[in-house]
C-alpha cells in the first residue's frame, strides 16, 4: 500500500498557500497542558488563523513515569501492577496484555473459568470506559449533563468490580496464570442486574445526545479520516473502525473467550467524529451481548493455576503479544535474557498512535472542531506517555 503521509512542513506550506484577502496574521496558541478539554496534561501547540486551525503540534512528556524503564527492574508479576496507571480506564485489559504475553512466552496454561472471568471483567470495563467517553464528549460539546449521566452508570460498574477487585480506578486483577482473586459470590447476580438496568439507559443516552441536531451538526463531517490515513497513522480501536476498517483483535486473533461468543464489530462509514462516537455506542451494546452469553455459564475450576510463589522466567528471545483495549491495540513487547526480569520492555499503547491522527484531521477546522476531534479520539493521556 502506498500511503502518502504529509509532513509538518508540507502542511504548513499548504496552509500558507490558501489565499486570504484580509491582512490577518497567523498566531500560535498553547492548548494545555492545563486545558479543560485535553483531558489531562496533553499540550497542543496550535497555529491559528482567526478561529481556523492551521496546524496542531502535540507536545508530549508531561506525565511520563518511566513505566517501561521500571519494568526492566520488575518481575513479570510486578509489571502487571504498573500497567493500571497507563490507560486507567482499561486497567484490567492492560493487565491482560502483560499476562497474555507472559503466558504465551512461558507457556503457562489457563482454564476456561479464568478466561471467562477475564473476558467478562474486560467487557465490563470496556462499557464503563465508553460511558465515560460518551459523557466527556458531551461535556466537550458544551452539554455538561451527559457527563454526570455517564458517571452515574459508570459508578455502578466500578461498584461491582470493587467487590471483587478492591479498587475502583486502578484495578489490578489479571495476572500471568490466572486472576488474582476469585469473583465475589454476588458478582454474577449483580452483573445481570446491571445489564437489565443499563440496556434501557443506553437508549436514554441516545435520546439525550445522539438525536440532538446541534450535536449532529458538530460531529458529522468533522475530522474526516479515510482508511488509508488511519492505517498509516497506526490508529486502532474505535478510531480505526470508524474509518471503515473492520480491525478488531477480538475477532481477528481471538483470545480469552472471544472466539466462542457471538458479537459484531461495529464500523463506521465516513470516518468522521460522528462515526467514532457512534462506534462506541454500538460497542457498548456488543459488550453487553458478550457478557450476557458468558455470565450464566462460568465454568467451575481454579481461578489461578500458577502459584504466586513460583518463580516466573521467560525463555530467552523476543516476545510480543497484543490485546484489544477500549481504545485500540495494546501490545507488550519483551526482550528476555531468560531471567526473572525483562531485559527490555515496551508497550505499544493505542492512545499514542491515535493521538497523531489528530495532526491529520484538525487542520482546516475551527477550534470547536479540534475539541470535537480530541474528544472523539477519547484519549487517555497517561497512556500516551507511559
Amino acid at each position, binding site marked *: 500500500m502506498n500511503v502518502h503521509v504529509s509532513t509538518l512542513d508540507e502542511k504548513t506550506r499548504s496552509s500558507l498557500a490558501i489565499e486570504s484577502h484580509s491582512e490577518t496574521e497567523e498566531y500560535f496558541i498553547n492548548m494545555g497542558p492545563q*486545558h479543560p478539554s485535553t483531558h489531562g496534561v496533553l499540550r497542543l501547540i496550535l497555529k491559528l488563523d482567526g*478561529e481556523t486551525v492551521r496546524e496542531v503540534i502535540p507536545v508530549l512528556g508531561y506525565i511520563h513515569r518511566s513505566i517501561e524503564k521500571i519494568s526492566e527492574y520488575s518481575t513479570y508479576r510486578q509489571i502487571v501492577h504498573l500497567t493500571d496507571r497507563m490507560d486507567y480506564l482499561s486497567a484490567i485489559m492492560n493487565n491482560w496484555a502483560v499476562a497474555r504475553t507472559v503466558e504465551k512466552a512461558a507457556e503457562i496454561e489457563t482454564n476456561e473459568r479464568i478466561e471467562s472471568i477475564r473476558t467478562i471483567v474486560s467487557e465490563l470495563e470496556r462499557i464503563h470506559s465508553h460511558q465515560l467517553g460518551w459523557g466527556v464528549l458531551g461535556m466537550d460539546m*458544551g452539554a455538561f449533563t451527559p457527563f*454526570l449521566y455517564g458517571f452515574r452508570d459508570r459508578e455502578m460498574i466500578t461498584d461491582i468490580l470493587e467487590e471483587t477487585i478492591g479498587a475502583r480506578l486502578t484495578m489490578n486483577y489479571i495476572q500471568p496464570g490466572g486472576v488474582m482473586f476469585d469473583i465475589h459470590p454476588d458478582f454474577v447476580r449483580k452483573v445481570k442486574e446491571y445489564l437489565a438496568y443499563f440496556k434501557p439507559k443506553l437508549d436514554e443516552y441516545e435520546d439525550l445526545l445522539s438525536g440532538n441536531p*446541534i450535536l449532529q*451538526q458538530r460531529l458529522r463531517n468533522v475530522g474526516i479520516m479515510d482508511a488509508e490515513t488511519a492505517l498509516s497513522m497506526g490508529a486502532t480501536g474505535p478510531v480505526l473502525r470508524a474509518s471503515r476498517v473492520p480491525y478488531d483483535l477480538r475477532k481477528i486473533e481471538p483470545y480469552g473467550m472471544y472466539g466462542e461468543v457471538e458479537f459484531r464489530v461495529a464500523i463506521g462509514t465516513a470516518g468522521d467524529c460522528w462515526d467514532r462516537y457512534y462506534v462506541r455506542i454500538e460497542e457498548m451494546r456488543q459488550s453487553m451481548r458478550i457478557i450476557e452469553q458468558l455470565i450464566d455459564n462460568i465454568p467451575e475450576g481454579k481461578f489461578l493455576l500458577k502459584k504466586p510463589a513460583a518463580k516466573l522466567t521467560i525463555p530467552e528471545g523476543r516476545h510480543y503479544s497484543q490485546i484489544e483495549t477500549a481504545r485500540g491495540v495494546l501490545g507488550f513487547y519483551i526482550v528476555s535474557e531468560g531471567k526473572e526480569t525483562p531485559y527490555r520492555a515496551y508497550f505499544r499503547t493505542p492512545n499514542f498512535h491515535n493521538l497523531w491522527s489528530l495532526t491529520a484531521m484538525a487542520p482546516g477546522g475551527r477550534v470547536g472542531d479540534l475539541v470535537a476531534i480530541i474528544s472523539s479520539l477519547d484519549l487517555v493521556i497517561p497512556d500516551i506517555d507511559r
Partner: protein
Amino acid sequence: MDMLDFFPSSILQAADTSWQTVTIAQRASSAFRDHDLSGTIGYLLLGLLFTAGLLTVLGLVLIYAERKLAGHFQCRLGPMRVGWHGILQSAADGLKLLLKEDIVPENADKLLHLGAPVLSLMATVLTLAILPLSPTLQVVDLNIGVIYVTAVTSLGVLAILIAGWSSNNKWSLLGAMRAGAQIISYELSATLSLLVMVLLSGSLQLSEIIQSQSDGWWIWKSHLVGVIAFVTFLISTTAELNRTPFDLPEGESELTGGFHTEYSGLRFAFFFLAEFVNMFVASALIVTLFFGGWMPFYIGGWDGFNSIMGLIPPGIWFAGKSAFFIFLLMWFRWTFPRLRIDQLMSLEWKILLPVGFINIFLAALIVLFEWHF
C-alpha cells in the same frame, strides 16, 4: 377585523379593570411639586434601594436556582450543606469571592481590566430601573423604554470586548472576538422582534405595551407574527446572554473560560452577577412584550376563573412568568450542546435575520389593515 370575524376575539381575554401605573419617579416628582422635600428624597432613595435590592436578591436567588436545577437535571442534589438545602450557598460563595485575592495579570491593561466588570454590571443595573414589575413597582417609565433597553444592554458587549482585550491573553481575546461577532449579530434579530411588538402595540413605552395587552396577550392576539417574533427573540436573546447553546464567548471546554479567563475574585463575581441579572432582564422583556407583563391570565367568559386570577397581585404574576422563562433558559443550558462559531453565524444571518425582516413586514401589513384582534 372584517376578515377574521369568525374568530371571536373575546375568547382569549377579558379585562374589565383598567390598570393605572404609578412609577416611583412619578411619585417623587409629584412630591416635589407639592414642595414635600422629605417625600421627594424618600422616593428617590426608595428607587435606588429598590434597584440595588433587586440586584442582590436576583443574584442570590438565581445563582441558587441555577445550581439546584442543574443538580436535579443531573441526578444529583446540588448544594445541600450551607443552610437548609443549601439555601445560603450563594451568600457563602459571594463572601468567598469577596475575600479572595485580587489577581491582575502582570501585562494586563490595569484600568480596562478593572473597568470591564464594572461596565458589565452597570449595563445590567441600568435596565433594572425601567422594568415594570407591577403597576406600582417601576422606578422610571421612559417613553422610549424599548430603545433604552436595547441601547443599554448592548453596552454589555463592550464590557466583554474590553475584558478580552485588557487581559492580555489569547484565549480571552478569542472569546471576546466571538462575543463581539455573536452579540452584535444577534442584537439585530432581537431588535427586529422588539420592533414587531412596538408596531403592534403602537408604543415604545414598556408600561404602555403592557396596557395594550389588557384585552389579550400579544402572543395570542397577533397571529403568527407574534409567535415568530417570540421565537426569534427567545433564540437571539439566549445568544446575547452567552448561554448554552450559544455560550461560545465563555466556551469553557474550548477557550478555558473565554473572556473571563483572567478574572477572579470580585471582578469575576461582577461578570457572573451581570450574567444572571441579564437573564432576568431578558425574561422580563419577553414577559412584558409577549405575555402581558403583570396582567393576570384571563379566559374570556369564565368569570369565576377570572376573578380568582384577578386576586393574585400583578407583581406575583410578573415574577411567576419571568421565573418560567428563567427556568426555560436554565433548562436549555443543562440540555443542549454548544454550536460552532460558523454554525452560529449562519443561523443568525441566513435564517433568523431574513425571517425577522419578513416578519416585520408582515407585522406592518397586519397593523396597517388592522387584522389583529
